[in-house]
């Protein structure tokens, strides 16, 4: 494998007594869409600001493009940032904002700079907005200006600090798609900080999940979802059903599901508490009356039905288990939704199960 674009080694960061980053090692490849995902206060924004150069480190090195940049100030790093508040300069026009970073480029004449600014505005879908006053823009437009202002400099890395959190749902989904398109178009490495696991899954090539200043898991989106390394990661990413289990050698006995062999399971992971098995809501199916299956079947009672139009969520309490598990089913035209109180059979497979111990 070639040299990574960014290599973080043993990053430690203290704020007084507060230990914000606890030994982060991370390689980020050139051209990938990378996400730092975690709850607020996990250190993801601090890590982004360490890469940008806004925060110094207590220990460790930051290599960008093979050069040690640990002590370099942000204006001398090949990184640019899109801030959470966008930080559009309100006293300048849109074009002056986008051209701000080009001021120092003495190798370009005025005309060349204007062309670059126009191209950048074009790229984010704001062609013709150059002469507008920046303070009169809407939230979504500010975000686009912030993107253009950073991308016009062709940085090696674009850093995005929760860029979509201020937008409403519809606008957010639209911008997600647009950011992916933009990243493919320019081929620049994007590093996104987000607390929204869905956003991270949708957008990223790879995701680092962070808790308490440490990387808990680094994986591609699908691997992260299907094979979480710990119960904490599993709970943070999507929905997972947990059932208490006992482990005897290779045999796992889970409440409501029965016995299974460790080798058949999808993966094993760690937990701080008692052993559990877990599975995702879409990996098991409720069998309708008369329906047959060759796989394994568990018995239970439907205790809650949530209808979403295209999907229905069923909460099912399995015989022998205390808490209900959630099953998501795609609705099929002409087939009725099961009622609360129905005795139901659940088809499941050990291959979709993760053991937490």
């Amino acid at each position, binding site marked *: 494998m070639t040299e990574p674009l960014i290599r973080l080694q043993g990053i430690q960061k203290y704020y007084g007594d507060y230990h914000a980053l606890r030994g982060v090692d991370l390689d980020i490849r050139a051209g990938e869409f990378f996400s730092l995902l975690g709850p607020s206060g996990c250190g993801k924004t601090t890590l982004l600001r360490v890469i940008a150069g806004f925060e110094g480190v207590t220990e460790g090195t930051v290599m960008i493009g093979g050069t040690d940049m640990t002590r370099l100030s942000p204006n001398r790093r090949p990184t640019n940032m899109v801030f959470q508040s966008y930080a559009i*300069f*309100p006293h300048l026009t849109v074009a002056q904002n986008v051209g701000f970073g080009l001021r120092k480029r003495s190798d370009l004449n005025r005309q060349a700079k204007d062309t670059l600014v126009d191209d950048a505005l074009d790229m984010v879908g704001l062609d013709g907005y150059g002469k507008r006053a920046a303070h009169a823009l809407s939230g979504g437009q500010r975000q686009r200006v912030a993107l253009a202002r950073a991308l016009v400099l062709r940085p090696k890395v674009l850093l995005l600090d929760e860029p979509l959190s201020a937008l409403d749902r519809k606008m957010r989904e639209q911008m997600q798609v647009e950011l992916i398109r933009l990243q493919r178009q320019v081929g620049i490495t994007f590093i996104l900080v987000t607390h929204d696991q869905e956003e991270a899954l949708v957008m990223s090539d790879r995701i680092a999940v962070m808790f308490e200043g440490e990387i808990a898991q680094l994986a591609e989106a699908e691997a992260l979802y299907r094979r979480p390394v710990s119960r904490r990661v599993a709970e943070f990413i999507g929905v997972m059903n947990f059932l208490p289990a006992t482990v005897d050698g290779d045999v796992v006995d889970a409440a409501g599901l029965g016995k299974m062999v460790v080798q058949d399971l999808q993966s094993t992971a760690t937990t701080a508490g008692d052993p559990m098995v877990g599975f995702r809501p879409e990996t098991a199916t409720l069998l309708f009356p008369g329906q047959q299956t060759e796989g394994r079947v568990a018995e239970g009672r439907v205790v809650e039905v949530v209808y979403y139009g295209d999907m229905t969520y069923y909460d099912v309490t399995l015989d022998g288990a205390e808490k209900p598990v959630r099953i998501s089913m795609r609705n099929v035209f002409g087939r009725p939704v099961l009622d609360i109180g129905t005795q139901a059979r659940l088809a499941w497979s050990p291959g979709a199960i993760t053991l937490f111990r």
Partner: protein
Amino acid sequence: MLRVYVIAFLAFLYAPIVLLPLFAFNDSTVIAFPLSGVTTKWFAELWTNKELHKALGNSLFVAGISSVLAVVLGLAAARANVRYRFPGKAAALGLIMLPLVLPEIIVATSLLVVAVRFFGWNLSLWTVIAAHVLICTPFAIAILNASFQSLDPSMEEASIDLGETRLSTFRLVTLPLVMPGIVAALLISFTISLDEFIIAFFLTGSDPTLPVYIWSLLRFPRLIPVVMALGTILVIISILMLTFAEWNRRRGLARAGVKDTGGFL
């Protein structure tokens, strides 16, 4: 009941000021009712009084220099206050803001003792300037604090991220964005220094500032209407400057698209 109270309160506060222009245009050296006719000769006399012009020049000199110094100090203090955390910050800021509530007579007396006894300075306009910087700086800080608080710290970071240095960032981003606050602080400091009497009275040497000169005029009853005329002009100038300062500050906030988080008026 509350309405009556408010009207009485405002009348008590502003009625004396209304009397000022009334007698400034009254054709009599006696300040008493009934009024005896309209004249502008008191204003005309202002034009010919050389000593008064000198005093006005002194005041403008003092107000100009002390307001600029107060705002420069205020800028540094306000930025440090809003952006950084350091030990002893609250105490330091409290001490800087203290002259705001300290009786001026105490400030004046102690400064006189310090200037003459400890430093052995001769009293001059510069001692007045030093003292006026002391009392104007808290006002400047109060206004500039609001400006820096409404300035998103990411603005400065964005500029540095885009390749500018700290110094060029201050010039290109920070200064333009807090400029309305700077203008407001300058105007208010200028007005305070221009109107200030007690400290100037204690600390001027042979060059009186305008308020001190007006005080000396009061010994000559014949000249009291002239003082009234001068007072009228000063009141109008003060009101215009304070109004402009506040208008300018609010316009700046509106332009930056942020909420008003304070200010002085």
